């Protein structure tokens, strides 16, 4: 069943969002990566996931909030189709760290899609990054951190809307960054945020 629904839903997501994918200064690879992107629409995770090449897509899991993706049968089903890694935002404790869970889940095979802003912003301006990306980079320095800028998807399906307007969107994936030795958390998060913004204009 999944062999049919996954490509069909991926194709549907691509058609609805008219997404163009640009790989700038990097190539699609199956090595372990963290794609980190700006967050403006519920479609972000799905469209970014759907626009990856099939062999990469099968290895990549979007990270998303359990309270959104477990409400209602449709979303719950979609979450299984897209192999979403669900994080419970309310139960974050020291012994139950989502970072450890993510790293446990991906092992040494899978890649992740994360949205370091945490939640979608309404203003259209990109928010500050939360520290999760820094901890990921610190614990697994071998992962390639890929900046992704998602353009126009907030117009396809803005917050609070359920009907899509299929405008053309654009996904730009840039060259990977890594945590540099001696770099502080704030510096790294600033640099990561800038690398996403740089994709907007390139």
């Amino acid at each position, binding site marked *: 069943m999944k062999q049919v629904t996954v490509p069909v839903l991926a194709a549907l997501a691509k058609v609805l969002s*008219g997404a*163009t994918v*640009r790989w700038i200064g990097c190539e699609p690879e199956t090595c372990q990566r963290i794609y980190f992107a700006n967050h403006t629409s519920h479609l972000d995770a799905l469209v970014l996931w759907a626009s990856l090449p099939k062999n990469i897509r099968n290895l990549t899991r979007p990270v998303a909030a359990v309270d959104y993706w477990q409400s209602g049968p449709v979303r719950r089903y979609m979450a299984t189709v897209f192999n979403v890694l669900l994080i419970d935002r309310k139960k974050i404790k020291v012994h139950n760290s989502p970072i450890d869970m993510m790293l446990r889940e991906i092992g040494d095979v899978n890649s992740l899609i994360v949205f370091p802003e945490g939640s979608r912003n309404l203003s259209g301006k990109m928010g500050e990054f939360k520290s999760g990306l820094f901890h990921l980079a610190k614990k697994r320095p071998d992962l390639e951190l890929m900046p992704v800028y998602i353009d*126009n998807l907030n*117009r396809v399906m*803005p917050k609070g*809307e359920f*009907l*899509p*307007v*299929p*405008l*053309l*969107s*654009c996904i730009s994936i840039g060259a990977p960054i890594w945590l540099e030795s001696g770099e502080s958390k704030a510096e790294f998060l600033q640099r990561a945020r800038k690398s996403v913004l740089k994709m907007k204009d390139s």
Partner: protein
Amino acid sequence: MIDATLTTLLAVQNESASSFGEGPGSWTIGLVLVVLVSLGALLAAGQTLKRKPESHIDPAILRNFNKRVTSWLTICVMLVIALMLHRSVTIALFGFVSFWALREFITMTPTRRGDHRTLFWVLFGFTPLQYVLVGIDNYDLFTIVIPVYASLFIPARIAFAGDHKRFLERTAKIQFGLLICVYSLSHAAALLNLKLAKWNSDTGVWEAWENGPNDTYGLLFFFIAIVQVSDILHFLWDRLFGRHVIAPAVNATKTWEGLLGAACCTSLVGMVIQVVLPVTPFTWWGAGFMALIISIMASSGSMTMSAIKRDRGVKEHGTLVLGHAGVLDRIDSVCFSAPIFFHLTRFFTDAESRVVDVVAEQSVAAATMGMSCFSFLV
């Protein structure tokens, strides 16, 4: 007397062809072949020149030329396939192109959150509705739904959404996009609905057209071919003889020489097509006049779209979102000329639309159309 002939003529027509077109006539097939072969030849020539390193032609111009020819060939092949399949497939094809063009247009123009639901209804409501109305041949409705009903619906729906910032500007953008991408283009598909007859000005009676009243495929293909010829000629005239740029701030390459040269040459091409392959019920000079109008409207379409693109700071819609072909870029000339060509053809050759004083109505119609076409030259 006119009424009597018209009634008999319509009766004969209804007998001979109760349903829509029986497929393209032999002249139309001839024209299709000629167009495909010439486009293929142009493509081959362009590709050969590209390979020759010693040619003196600017490679950027050549690339642009090849791109144009390739996209026109694609459009023609798709149109021919649709025409061979069924009338409804052709109308659906135009509908899909409209949808895609409107999508590009809205992507290019900034809208606000408050416009979201309006845009949904425009894209999924009015766009399909327009083509359904063309499909069921409801002339009264398909000519007024967008300019009247949609024009009133759009501002009202935006007002209900509660965002008043730049209200008129946002309303106008959506209205304009719908009018150009959907309403205007649908008139090209609506050419298939016309019931063609010949007006004999010597005797003052309607005569049956030898191709049959429903051979509208020829008319549609004549129109598309003329727009293409005009586009290519305009491009060549600009590059070869262009001196006086019309509006450098809007489009740095479009010149008066190009506009007038292309219009005159296209007119000649229209006459030649009609004499060699009579695919339309026009006289030879009528076809020349139609081609002239089409060419001028096509040029003004490209100019208008250039102005919009300049205002938005993009050169081509296609590069706005990389990888998309830029449908709007290719069809701007078709959009502007389709409604004018449709109505002129209807006034002069559609047997069903004429019941009263033909000559007076045609004169008034021609004067109105002529004025709207030529007013911007002066």
